[in-house]
């Protein structure tokens, strides 16, 4: 901890940070565009300039330096004295804002960024009300730079964050700077569009409306969106994300700062992997089959029906023939509740983990980086909670099976009653697994989409997408992170946690935190979760 003085106030800052970062973390609102804590410093926007006390070159006496210095570039040193509240600093901020807006089209009414635009915020807070420029504005072109991204270079403030991102984080170097002076533009090379698995981040780090996401373009005004804090279920890495939604519809996913996992970034696969939530083909109500007869039970009756059916089965054929397949898409709390129910009705029942989807290889960014040079990783394991389920099975003990063992034993007819949980966004039942569906006397299928299991199941329960659920995922590094529901499930469906809570014999409303308390005795390692805080406050 170094002590520095900002505007005559002494504050403590973390070691190794810049003066700008120290000021922001201590609560100062210092305008900045080019500075981003995850990227190198270029000090080119000149908005964060400050006054600093320095020794006089001849007399060595400490005094305010006549030159304004960039706070983003100056390291915070013990005893250093800086100030932002002077006329000179404020005048520079005001002038910079005037310069930024000289050629800006001021098309906020049709701009997606409006509402979360730092050009708007800073103009309001630090800028002038009027521009003195009467001449024609320079109009740089709007460009389609990739399959998912547009670049409106007339709105650009040349912070070059996006260029540095492609150089330093994704390591793909698609973006570059062309031309000179005020005609300077960000551009891609001919025939080489911005198309890398992390490209969506350039839209996030763009402080203005220059880089736009085609997926979100003209969909909603950002001030209408509500923000839910969640964890990405796309792979086993568990990046912290926020779900921007309104009217029970998800509009976009954005990364949330998490120093333990994803820093400021997320991949496109996670970012755009939410469309299945709003798929019309989702199962949205429970179903009970008796022979050819199908009924939709009331949710209130479901726990009793299930308990009765399982108890009858155990009485007739014995508890050892019961198995529950826990999907790696389930939250720890849901999996625990289901396991509790199964072991309740049949203490000798087996618990198995469902199939874990893998795609390709782990991808690291920048490619070929190692050690601290790795800025981002996308894992090949495309399920959020394998580690959590495995850990749960290990803690609960008894008869536990891997996926392969389950397929083998079920194929041999060792199990006659099964509860199979899916919840995969993509079809997951392969040929071998599909053959199992007809082998059970009692089959409960809990899934999002129709498949071989749900069509043959005696009881079908609708599963919810992660954006509608609550719980915690344990990522590949063993870190358990909580996620919260953002939207409500489709009409007729209920949150998995809620009905599993009731099926497990509890009453009242399901809350993940409450279940974690209940889990503490049997599964202590999953009952503690890490939630990334927005502290220390970081630059935008």
């Amino acid at each position: 901890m170094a002590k520095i003085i900002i505007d005559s106030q002494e504050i403590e800052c973390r070691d190794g940070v810049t003066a700008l970062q120290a000021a922001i973390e201590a609560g100062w609102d210092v305008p900045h565009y080019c500075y981003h804590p995850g990227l190198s410093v270029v000090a080119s926007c000149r908005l964060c300039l400050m006054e600093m006390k320095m020794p006089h070159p001849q007399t060595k006496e400490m005094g305010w330096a006549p030159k304004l210095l960039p706070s983003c570039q100056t390291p915070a040193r013990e005893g250093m004295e800086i100030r932002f509240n002077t006329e000179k600093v404020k005048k520079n901020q005001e002038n910079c804002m005037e310069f930024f807006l000289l050629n800006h089209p001021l098309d906020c009414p049709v701009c997606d960024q409006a509402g979360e635009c730092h050009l708007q915020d800073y103009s309001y807070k630090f800028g002038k009300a009027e521009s003195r420029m009467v001449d024609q504005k320079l109009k740089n072109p709007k460009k389609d730079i990739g399959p998912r991204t547009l670049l409106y270079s007339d709105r650009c403030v040349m912070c070059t964050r996006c260029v540095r991102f492609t150089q330093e984080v994704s390591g793909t170097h698609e973006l570059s700077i062309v031309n000179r002076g005020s005609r300077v533009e960000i551009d891609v090379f001919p025939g080489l569009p911005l198309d890398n698995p992390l490209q969506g981040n350039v839209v996030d780090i763009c402080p203005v409306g220059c880089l736009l996401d085609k997926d979100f373009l003209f969909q909603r005004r950002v001030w209408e969106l509500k923000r839910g804090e969640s964890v990405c279920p796309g792979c086993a890495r568990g990046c912290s994300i926020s779900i921007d939604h309104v009217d029970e519809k998800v509009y976009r996913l954005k990364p949330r700062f998490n120093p333990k996992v994803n820093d400021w970034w997320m991949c496109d696969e996670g970012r755009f992997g939410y469309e299945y939530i709003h798929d019309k083909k989702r199962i949205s109500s429970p179903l009970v089959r008796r022979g050819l007869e199908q009924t939709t039970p009331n949710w209130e009756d479901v726990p009793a029906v299930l308990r009765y059916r399982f108890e009858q089965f155990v009485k007739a054929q014995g508890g050892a023939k019961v198995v529950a397949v826990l999907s790696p898409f389930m939250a720890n709390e849901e999996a625990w509740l289901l396991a509790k129910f199964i072991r309740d009705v049949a203490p000798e029942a087996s618990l198995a983990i469902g199939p874990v989807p893998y795609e390709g290889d782990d991808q690291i960014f920048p490619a070929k980086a190692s050690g601290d040079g790795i800025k981002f990783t996308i894992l090949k394991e495309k399920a959020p909670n394998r580690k959590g389920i495995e850990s749960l099975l290990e803690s609960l003990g008894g008869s536990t099976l891997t996926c392969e063992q389950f397929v083998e034993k079920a194929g041999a007819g060792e199990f006659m009653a099964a509860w199979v949980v899916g919840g995969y966004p993509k079809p997951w039942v392969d040929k071998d697994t599909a053959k199992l569906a007809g082998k059970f006397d009692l089959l409960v299928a809990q899934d999002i989409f129709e498949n071989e299991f749900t069509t043959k199941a005696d009881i079908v329960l609708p599963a919810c997408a992660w954006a509608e659920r609550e719980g915690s995922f344990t990522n590949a590094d063993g870190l358990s992170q909580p996620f919260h529901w953002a939207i409500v499930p489709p009409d007729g469906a209920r949150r998995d946690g809620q009905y599993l809570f009731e099926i497990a014999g509890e009453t009242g409303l399901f809350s993940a935190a409450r279940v974690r308390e209940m889990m503490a005795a049997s599964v202590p390692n999953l009952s503690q979760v890490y939630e990334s805080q927005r502290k220390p406050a970081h630059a935008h």
Partner: protein
Amino acid sequence: MAAFEPVLLRNRGVEGSTTLKVYESRGGYQAVRKALKQTPDEIVAEVKKANLRGRGGAGFPAGVKWGFLPKDRKKTLLCVNGDESEPPTFCNRVLMEHDPHQLIEGTIIAAYAVQAQTVYIYLRGEFHEQFHIVQKAVDQAYAAGYLGKKIFGSDFSIEMYLHRGAGAYVCGEETGLIESLEGKRGWPRIKPPFPAIEGAFRLPTVVNNVETLSCVPHIIERGADWFTGIGPAHSAGPKLFCISGPVKRPGCYEGAMDITVRELIEREDMGGGMIDGKHVKAVFPGGCSMGILSADELDMKLDFDDPRNFGLLGLGTAAAVVIPHDMDMRVVLRNMARFYGTESCGQCTQCREGTAWMHKIATRIAADAGRPEDLDVLLETARNMGMMPGLSICGLPDGATFPIETTVKKFRSELEEYILAQPKGRAEYLLRVLN
């Protein structure tokens, strides 16, 4: 006044002056032989004692610059700044065209002094002919064993490369030059670290101007005392002056830094006075970036310190361009603004937007659509862009604002007359048409 005996230009006009043979026959490559018998520190001390101030524009003492290098460095680079792109300046060009071996000799001595075994000569892209001349001279020096391994039989080895820029004003700034040399976009770097600590390819780097290095052999050969004996104490040594515009003898001349602008224009062995009975209205005495002088300020001394007394940025490149009495100052203003508007690199906000805005205003004034308040806007924009001390990464905006500010301040009445003489309502009409 005693005629100045040329030092840097002594080989100009001699037949075959670019060849090694002629250069050696006139006493060339003796200084480097002498230098290699001394220790590097002795040479640095000698150059420091001579107070050789950088000829590139800023006037920073070369010896002091060399002293900034870290003591425990393993590898050092020397870059020769031949990106001479200040508008009316052509002294480096003359030196390279007529006496490339003098530059090579000075470079070898400087490289030995800072123990740099790799030297890059960075030439601006437009120097086609000069590139071939210097390349030929370098080849001759290699053939003679003056460059390469164990030069002149000593233990010191040196490799020299020529690098041609792509034609950007900002690459004359030392860190812009270094970026360009590395093959990147010529955007000046943030300092610290300064090039002496971490420059090209992350190695300690010294960047010196062509003319500065051309002075070095003479300092070594004749001693620091001889050098400081030329001109005033704070601006010692011979200096090249360029003069262009409607004078009788436009060109590059050498002299001590004790002459005035008037002498540069009038002296028979220099400018030779104005042509066709024109008289001086204004002069940019040190390259455009330094600012303008009005006709009654011609007694300004062309040394490193006096220009400050006249509201100028400094001596700059000591390249004067004379503006005759019949020139419209609005055109001068527009011309200056256009240059910086197109040459700003686009990195820092103030410079990127400010230069372009000033160009727009100046263009409009020149097109008879000026408004009286435009002059104030110009002055304020210039100040907002940062003038000594600057607000940007490099010094380009300082250089961009001084000519505009001094022109508007010193010729305000003339510009206002033009604006008031515009037909009534024309400015508003043209504004509508232009927009």
